[in-house]
C-alpha cells in the first residue's frame, strides 16, 4: 500500500498546527525550563570527624535555598548558609610529628544570589556569592549562558566567574593577604534516549595570591594554582524498577601536579507509599602535590623551596557511603534524611601506596525539607 511509504504524520502535523491556538500550546509546553512555582528548601547538616587519639571536629550547618519565577521569563535563586565549626582540625602528618593541632572555633556565613533570564531556546544567568569567616572573606561574580539545539536534545553551556578573596589569619601569620581567581567552564548535555541523558563539562581555573596554610608551620606553597576539571555525568531511568541510576566521573589536575579521580554512583529507588530510598557510593583517589613531603615532619624543608606537610596534599584514597530516605509528602512538605560515612586512607590511593598517615573518618547526617507553592 502506497500510504505506508509516506509520512502522513508530517502533513497532518502541519495541518494540525494551523488550527487556532494549537501551535501556541506546543511552544509553551516545551519551553518548560522557566520554573512554574516557587520552591523552598531547608536543610540542616551535621558533620563529625573521627581520628584515633585526636579531638574531633564538628560542623553544624543550617542552609536555605529558594528558587522563584519572577514574571514570565525570569527566575531568581537565593542560597544562604552558616556553618559553625568546633573542635580541632585532624591530626594528620604535622601533628603526629609533634606540632599541636590548632583548635578551631569558627563561624562561617555564606550566601549567593543568581538571576536567570529564559529565552525560547537559551538562558542567560548571572549572580554573585559572598562568604565570610573570622580569617577569610570570599567574593565572586559569575555570568553564564546556555543554548538548546532546535530539537532540545543537546544543550551547550558557557560560564565565567571571578573571585577576589581576603585572608587575615587569627594567629598573625597571614595579614591582609589576598587571593584572586578566574574560572571558565564549557559544558555539553545530550539526551541519549527517552530514558538516558549525559552531560560533560570542562572547567579551567586560574588562581593567584596567597595559598599557604597560615595555621601549619613551615607551610609554603606556590603563589598560583591552575586547575583543570573534567566532569562527566550520566543518568538513566529504569521504567520497570521505577528507579534512576546516576553516575559521574570527575578528573582533576592542577599546576601543583596533584591529580584526582572521583567516581560517584547513586540509585534512587521509588518505593511503595511514595517513599524513596537512595543508596550512594563515592570513590576518590588523588596523587600528591609535588611539594608535599611525607613524614617525618620538617625533613626536606628548605626556606627557598615550597614545602607542605598538609595531608590533604598527600596521595590517598577515600570511600564515601550514603543512604538517603525520602518521606511521602505531608501537608505540602517533603522531607529527606541522609546518612553518610566517609573514610580516607593513604593505601586506598590508586597506584603505589605511600607512607601511612593516620586514617581519617567522618560521618554526616542531613535533614532536608522542601516545599513548593
Amino acid at each position, binding site marked *: *500500500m502506497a500510504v505506508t*511509504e509516506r509520512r502522513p504524520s508530517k502533513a*497532518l502535523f502541519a*495541518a494540525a498546527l494551523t488550527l487556532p491556538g*494549537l501551535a501556541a500550546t506546543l511552544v509553551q*509546553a516545551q519551553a*518548560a525550563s522557566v520554573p*512554574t512555582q516557587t520552591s523552598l528548601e531547608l536543610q540542616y547538616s551535621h558533620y563529625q570527624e573521627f581520628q584515633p587519639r585526636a579531638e574531633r571536629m564538628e560542623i553544624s550547618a543550617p542552609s536555605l535555598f529558594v528558587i522563584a519565577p519572577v514574571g514570565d521569563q525570569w527566575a531568581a535563586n537565593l542560597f544562604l548558609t552558616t556553618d559553625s565549626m568546633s573542635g580541632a582540625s585532624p591530626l594528620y602528618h604535622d601533628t603526629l610529628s609533634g606540632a599541636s593541632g590548632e583548635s578551631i572555633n569558627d563561624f562561617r556565613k555564606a550566601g549567593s544570589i543568581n538571576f536567570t533570564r529564559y529565552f525560547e531556546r537559551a538562558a542567560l544567568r548571572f549572580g554573585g556569592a559572598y562568604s565570610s569567616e573570622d580569617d577569610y572573606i570570599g567574593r565572586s561574580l559569575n555570568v553564564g549562558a546556555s543554548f538548546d539545539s532546535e530539537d532540545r536534545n543537546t544543550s551547550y553551556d558557557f560560564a565565567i566567574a571571578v573571585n577576589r578573596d581576603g585572608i587575615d589569619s587569627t594567629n598573625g601569620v597571614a595579614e591582609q593577604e589576598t587571593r584572586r581567581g578566574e574560572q571558565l567552564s564549557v559544558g555539553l548535555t545530550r539526551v541519549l534516549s527517552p530514558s538516558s541523558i549525559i552531560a560533560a563539562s570542562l572547567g579551567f581555573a586560574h588562581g593567584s595570591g596567597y595559598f599557604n596554610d597560615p595555621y601549619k608551620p613551615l607551610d609554603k606553597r606556590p603563589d598560583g594554582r591552575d586547575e583543570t576539571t573534567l566532569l562527566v555525568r550520566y543518568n538513566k531511568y529504569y521504567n520497570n524498577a521505577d528507579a534512576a541510576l546516576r553516575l559521574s566521573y570527575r578528573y582533576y589536575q592542577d599546576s601543583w601536579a596533584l591529580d584526582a579521580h572521583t567516581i560517584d554512583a547513586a540509585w534512587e529507588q521509588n518505593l511503595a507509599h511514595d517513599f524513596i530510598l537512595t543508596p550512594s557510593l563515592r570513590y576518590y583517589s588523588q596523587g600528591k602535590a609535588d611539594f608535599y613531603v611525607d613524614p617525618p615532619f620538617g625533613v626536606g624543608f628548605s626556606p627557598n623551596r615550597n614545602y607542605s606537610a598538609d595531608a590533604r596534599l598527600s596521595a590517598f584514597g577515600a570511600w564515601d557511603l550514603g543512604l538517603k530516605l525520602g518521606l511521602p509528602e505531608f501537608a505540602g512538605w517533603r522531607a529527606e534524611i541522609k546518612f553518610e560515612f566517609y573514610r580516607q586512607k593513604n593505601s586506598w590511593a590508586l597506584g603505589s601506596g605511600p607512607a601511612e598517615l593516620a586514617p581519617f573518618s567522618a560521618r554526616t547526617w542531613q535533614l532536608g525539607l522542601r516545599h513548593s507553592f
Partner: protein
Amino acid sequence: MQLHQKAFRAMASQCEIKLWSADVQQAELVLQAAVAEVQRIEAKYSRYQAQSVISQINANAGISDTIVDAETAALLDFAQQCFEQSDGLFDITSGVLRRAWDFKSHRLPSQADIDALLPLIGWHKLNWQRPNVRLRLAGMQLDFGGFGKEYAADRAASVLIAAGMMHALVNLGGDVRVTGPQSDGTPWCIGIQHPRHADQAIASIAIGSGALATSGDYERYMVINGKRYAHLLNPHTGYPIACAQSASVQAPLCVLAGALASCALLQGAGGLEFLRAQEFAFLWVDDCGLAISS
C-alpha cells in the same frame, strides 16, 4: 499544590479535567473555563443542534454555499489532509452511512440501502474555497466527529495553558491531552481501555507532555451471526473495515494523535505498518487481541 478535578459529560463521552494548583479559587475558575471551551466546540459542531455550523452546512447541501469562520475553515483544511493522507479512507462525508448502519438495531442494511448512499460520499463532491463551503449534492452530510473530541481536548489545554496551568490533564472519553507533567515532575499515568473488556486497561502509558488518543472498534458495533460489524466504515464500499481492535498513538497534539490512530485502523491489516512508518509511539491491538507497541 493540590490536585483539582472536574468530571463532566460532553460529546457523548465521560470527560474529566485535572490540574495541580495552589490557588483553589483560581483552579475552580480555570476548570470551568476549560469545560466551557469543550461545550463551545460541541455546540458549534454538533450534528444534533440545528443552529450548529455543521447543521447549517448540511442544511445547505445541494442548495447554496455556507460562509464559515476561520476556526471552521482550519478544521476543513485539516479534514482535507486527513482525506488525502489516508488515501480517501478518512472522509468526513462518510457519516451519511449512518442512515443505513444502525448499530443498535442489530440488523444488517441491505445492499440497496448502501448503494443509495454511496453517491453521497466523497470529499471531492464538496466545494471548499475558503470561506465558502458547499456540499454539492442534496442529502450529503458533513461530520466532524472524526476529530472533534480531540480538537476540543487540545483547545481545553490551550485554555489551561493561557491561565498558566502547566500541570494539567484533559481526558475527553479516552482522548487525552496534558499541558505538562504533574506538579512534582512525574508524568500522568494513563490507562488504555481494553478493547474487549470495557472496565479493564490493556496497558498504561506515562505522559508528561503532549497527547494520547485511541481509536477502537468497540465504540459502536454489532455482532450478527458471530461476525462483528464495527462503526469504522470504508467510504468506498460502505461496509465496515476488517480492522484491528484498537490503535493508540502518542503525539504532541491530540488532533494529530487521533487522526493517526483513525488512519491506522482504517488501513485494516496495513495499519500496523502504517504506524511503524510514522515517528510516534503507538500501541496496536490486532484483530486477535494481541498488543504490539512501538
